């Protein structure tokens, strides 16, 4: 039984890596999500890496993660027969999410205007790299392009080396989650007055939004952040965010005042126990320590920050990530390990909350552990979770069961390459 949360709603999912997460979230919440893909499979199934590095349409880790819980049917959108089937399905759907090049669906008669004529209740969400009206609206896309266009790339990296992206591309994930939120907002409007609408998700804007409002700094402070490796802040008041330890790195927030005074004091006391703190640090009133706050620093501020960072660096060097994290949890210090997926998989908090779920992947002959509920709802839990579908696994169920096509009709569509 699917989650009661969105049970009974149907979403057609024609999104590739620009928005597969939207359908995954809807499936987690109990909607029936029908992934419509080309007969040879959605391009997102070819995204490496593959499980055990063996390529295959069911082995891509991206597809395993973000098509989980969906149904799959095939439709060759170049075929008029297949277009008709998709139009018929759209007439039965509550939601549609897609990420085609602008104008493509219109050109084959499956654009919002055409679909809404038959199904005015439809909420149709289009994920676009740059919106639907600017000069880049038809630009070629890759995830790194949005990371650059949205401003995050500029701030990641070391001076003297190229700006970088994360080693697991993120822009399409933000856009997919934004598509989930905005589709649900449009759903609320529809449930009140019966009318759907067309929603445009702008992926570039989704990345700008991740910048923690840094966009306003040039205008309000005449300054903007440049990439400085493990440091953050403006040039005059930068803080070290990451420190080396025995088996990797940790991150801590060295601050005073209401934000970090108590934490910094606790850290200094811990350092004192081990002989790493300077006298001035022990005597300092950290609750009133707010050097600069992005403004000009005094020489004394500069000395304090640099001495603190220097000693903290030496202090952590002798401890493992785990030792540091355990020590700071006890002392309520603002700190986290720079966790690898191995650290996360072993985390006691996640296991206490039974976060990871084990899903049977009969398609692969094994079970796989995956991230579970993105939220815990008391009455309508998210899940249960299911594996990603094989290409066209639900053709019979949807084309036969839902659209009522006969077995011979389905066979004919298959023979002509429509599905």
């Amino acid at each position, binding site marked *: 039984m699917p989650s009661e949360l969105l049970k009974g709603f149907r979403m057609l999912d024609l999104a590739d890596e620009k928005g597969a997460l939207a359908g995954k979230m809807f499936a987690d919440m109990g909607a029936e999500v029908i992934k419509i893909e080309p007969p040879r499979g959605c391009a997102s199934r070819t995204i490496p890496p593959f499980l055990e590095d063996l390529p295959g349409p069911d082995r891509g880790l991206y597809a395993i*993660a973000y098509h989980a819980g969906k149904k799959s049917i095939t439709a060759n959108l170049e075929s008029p027969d297949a277009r008709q089937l998709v139009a018929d399905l759209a007439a039965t759907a509550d939601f549609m999410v897609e990420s085609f090049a602008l104008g493509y669906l219109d050109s084959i008669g499956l654009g919002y205007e055409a679909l809404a004529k038959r199904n005015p209740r439809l909420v149709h969400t289009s994920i676009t790299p740059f919106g639907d009206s600017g*000069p880049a609206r038809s630009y070629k896309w890759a995830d790194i392009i949005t990371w650059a266009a949205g401003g995050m790339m500029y701030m990641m990296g070391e001076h003297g080396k190229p700006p970088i992206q994360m080693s697991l591309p993120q822009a399409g994930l*933000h856009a997919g989650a934004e598509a989930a939120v*905005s589709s649900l907002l449009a759903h609320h409007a529809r449930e009140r007055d019966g009318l759907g609408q067309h929603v445009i998700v702008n992926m570039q804007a989704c990345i700008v939004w991740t910048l923690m409002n840094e966009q306003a700094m040039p205008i309000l402070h005449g300054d903007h952040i440049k990439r400085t490796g493990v440091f953050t802040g403006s040039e005059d008041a930068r803080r070290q965010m990451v420190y080396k330890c025995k088996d990797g790195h940790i991150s801590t927030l060295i601050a005073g005042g209401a934000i970090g005074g108590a934490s910094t004091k606790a850290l200094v006391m811990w350092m004192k126990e081990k002989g790493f703190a300077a006298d001035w640090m022990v005597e300092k009133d950290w609750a009133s320590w707010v050097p600069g706050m992005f403004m000009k620093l005094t020489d004394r501020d500069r000395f304090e920050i640099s001495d603190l960072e220097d000693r903290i660096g030496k202090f952590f060097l002798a401890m493992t990530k785990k030792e540091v994290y355990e020590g700071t949890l006890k002392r309520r210090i603002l700190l986290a390990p720079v966790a690898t997926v191995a650290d996360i998989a072993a985390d006691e908090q996640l296991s206490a909350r039974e976060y990871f779920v084990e899903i049977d992947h009969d398609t692969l002959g094994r079970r796989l552990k995956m991230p579970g509920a993105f939220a*815990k*709802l008391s009455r309508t839990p998210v899940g249960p979770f299911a594996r990603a579908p094989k290409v066209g696994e639900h053709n019979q169920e949807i084309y036969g069961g839902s659209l009522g096509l006969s077995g011979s009709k389905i066979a004919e569509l298959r023979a002509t390459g429509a599905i």
Partner: protein
Amino acid sequence: MSKFAVEGVKILDFAWVGVGPITTKYLADNGAEVIRVESSTRLDVLRIAPPWKDARPGINSSQFFASYNSSKKGITLDLSKPAARDLVKRLVPWADVVVESFTPKAMRNWGLDYEHLRELRPDLIMLSTCMQGQTGPNALYPGFGQLMAALSGFYYISGYDEDSPCPPYGAYSDFVAPRFSASALLAALDYRRRTGSGQYIDMSQYEASLHNLAPALIDYLATGRVLWPRGNASDRYAPHGAYRCADEDGHERWIAIAVRDDAEWRAMRSVLGIGGDDARFASMKQRHNAAAELDSLVNSFTRGFNAYDLTAKLQGAGVAAYPVQNCVDLHQDENLEAFGFWHWLDHKEMGTCVYEGLEHRMSRTPGTLRSAAPVLGQHNEEIFGGMLGLSAAEIEKLKKENVII
């Protein structure tokens, strides 16, 4: 016809800092009435964080706070005082939704947890969002999104290699989790519409954010392989990365490029004027194998181009490219402009400032930043007087007693 998607939804919002306020902002900008409950005895830390209007600090002039609290009203209460909690209890029956983002024990200690509040409003939806969830050994973990971004794996996969971490700017996970919490909240509201039942939502910023790392987690849990930081290296594209362009006004400029097949590589060579058909780079496999040489070859050619000119040329030839933009560039970006992304709001004390708009646009009931964020306690009279019916004298008394503060 409704003007806004969730007009009529009422939210009593105790959340502070990032995830909670950004979650309720989704609804506020789309018509929900959101009352933020703040306190001057325990300020939302964003109120004391930059950027500030004219770079001048002040609790009512942080554009950081203002950005995440558009379209909301604000009242102030010192919740450590019983009289303040009594006022909260009088407001709860009005609310469809209560949101809070304290460390888990706070609302319990005040008797304002879901079990108590649902007695006042049986179909209440309550969303608690914190770092690591309401239960478990680390439930009381204090922190901010910067730390959560490290804990949930994003810092580690940001760098040139294992020894040179280059974390994403800011509190990255604060901008991952709200899209999950807003989805959960909107779905719970729909479930209540269908069934009449409210519920409690326990949201862990950690657990939501890890969905943006799911392929790597599945890989590790199945095979023990750890996703490592690898700069801009890609298994899908070559070239792939940021390449140096001509400096502008003494500032360095870079362009991001991703080439997905041999035809695009030929198109790129022609745009950049890379002559000959260098046998080392003819196929995708060769380009992957000689990625470092390839990058340095590409860099030697991009160096002569203006990043925006080169973008137009490469895209014209069918190659994915865009300048690596900084925050000054974003405000001049024609695509964000065409989308109507930037909003200028008139704030009671800050005057007019620029804000980010919504990241989506609805054709029929578009949301918008309906008003600037409240100054501290801006709506005390309206809410306590107008809504709860307290007299001016009663309000004055509560202010003197530091209940409304």
